[in-house]
């Protein structure tokens, strides 16, 4: 199979404006931090972010105007750092549409996409305003049972997942919790992996069952040591408490956020574009 290694810049250049973009990881953990920073550097616009529970990734992409829509169950920095200020401000200001999901409905939408069917039934959701707000319909059981809520297929244009170990064609190991990453890889039209290290795939032959992602579903592989940062990456590093605390403080106002982004995320050329 072909060598899919490429630069982060080239991989992210293939994410078009307006893409529906699934991001791996969960809250403060194993999000694709380096890829998100590259999206900011390249000035991407109009993205729809898909994730069960996001934090820094969603907040930042909302804060710099890269995201137009957020389809997620939870957006916040947990009790470690609190609410997501730029996400809040962008939704409250009408610049970002919050398409709230129930986490399980993100999973259901991805599962429909994976199975090639238009929708997926899910249990629960009774008594909630979410189905009406999202336009989730109810269907009668054609086999004589009751009604069930059906979630439309959620097909990401691109999924970006950060892993601990991948080979050149995209076979990848994930250490610790896989979150929804494997579902995203299966559901998406295009898959970008960033990996802490690129290894010789022959080493996977002894225990292929430990490989979470099969390379034939992957389009691009980027070597990115520390590529989850400031998210944590299980077995390697914890989320960056000092950085995230500073980020969340800066995120409380647009002016301080943009200064933070210019000074700590962008290089000089990209900062000019943002300005």
């Amino acid at each position: 199979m072909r060598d899919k290694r490429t630069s982060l810049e080239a991989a992210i250049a293939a994410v078009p404006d307006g893409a529906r973009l699934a991001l791996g990881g969960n809250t403060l953990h194993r999000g694709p931090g380096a890829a998100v920073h590259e999206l900011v550097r390249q000035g991407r616009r109009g993205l729809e972010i898909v994730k069960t529970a996001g934090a820094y990734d969603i907040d930042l992409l909302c804060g710099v105007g890269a995201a137009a829509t957020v389809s997620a169950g939870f957006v916040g920095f947990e009790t470690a750092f609190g609410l997501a200020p730029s996400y809040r401000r962008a939704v409250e200001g009408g610049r970002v549409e919050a398409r709230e999901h129930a986490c399980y409905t993100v999973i259901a939408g991805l599962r429909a996409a994976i199975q090639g069917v238009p929708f997926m039934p899910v249990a629960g959701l009774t008594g909630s305003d979410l189905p009406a707000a999202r336009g989730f319909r109810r269907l009668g059981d054609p086999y004589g049972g009751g009604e069930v809520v059906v979630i439309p297929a959620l097909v990401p244009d691109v999924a970006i997942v950060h892993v601990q170990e991948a080979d050149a064609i995209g076979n990848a190991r994930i250490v610790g919790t896989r979150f929804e990453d494997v579902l995203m890889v299966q559901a998406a039209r295009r898959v970008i992996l960033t990996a802490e290290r690129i290894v010789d795939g022959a080493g996977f032959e002894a225990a292929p069952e430990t490989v979470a992602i099969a390379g034939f579903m992957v389009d691009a592989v980027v070597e990115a040591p520390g590529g989850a940062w400031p998210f944590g990456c299980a077995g390697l590093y914890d989320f960056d408490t000092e950085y995230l605390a500073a980020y969340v403080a800066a995120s409380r106002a647009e002016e301080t956020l943009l200064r933070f982004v210019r000074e700590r995320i962008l290089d000089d050329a990209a900062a000019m574009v943002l300005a």
Partner: protein
Amino acid sequence: MVVTLARLLGDGETVFHGVASPLPMVATLLAKRLHAPDLVYLSIGGGVDPDPVRLPVSTVDPALLHGTRALVTLTDLFDLAARGRLDVAFLGGVQIDGSGRINMSLIGDPARPKVRLPGGAGSAALMPVARRTILWRTKHDPRTFVERLDFVTAAGNVAHVITPLCLFARREGRLVVESVHPGVDPDALRAATGFPLAVDSGTPVTQAPTAAELGALAQIDSDHVRVSEFERATGGG
């Protein structure tokens, strides 16, 4: 609060918490240590019965995989609840109404919210199908306990609600005060609650933590991770 939460969990029960849930994390570990050794502790990271060396402030942290002998996925956990096999779900609520429904979504007009909240995480899917839900909230004021929610994020099988002032139980679809925490004045509790409450000097008082409970708590949460919930109550689930 955390000791009262732990007492609500029975031995052998299957218990789940999600993101931003330090109190449920500590309470579940405490129950397992004290009276429920066969409780099955599940959390969003997929660890089964973890034995963490240190308690993380993020309840999705890999620290909650330590000591785990099996790993399931979040999809597996939602599926487990959906087929009726999850005994207890811990869920938060930024607003909670008198029937135990929650709002984690927004304050104000849904079309153009005044405040965008984090979202209900798994709550809308879990609350109707978990055998029972325990809600917790580290604030008890009239903005939290409201007559009418701005948005119903989730509704369902709520059994108890714990706050810094009292323990509610849900009976015939309404929250009633099961016990008032020691030292809480009934008038102050009524004033802090936005829906009518039957509470007076005859209302039972929550049993204070025993020395054994406090001792186990000090061991389990030696870093006082649970305090983060009182400093930054985002709502979790």
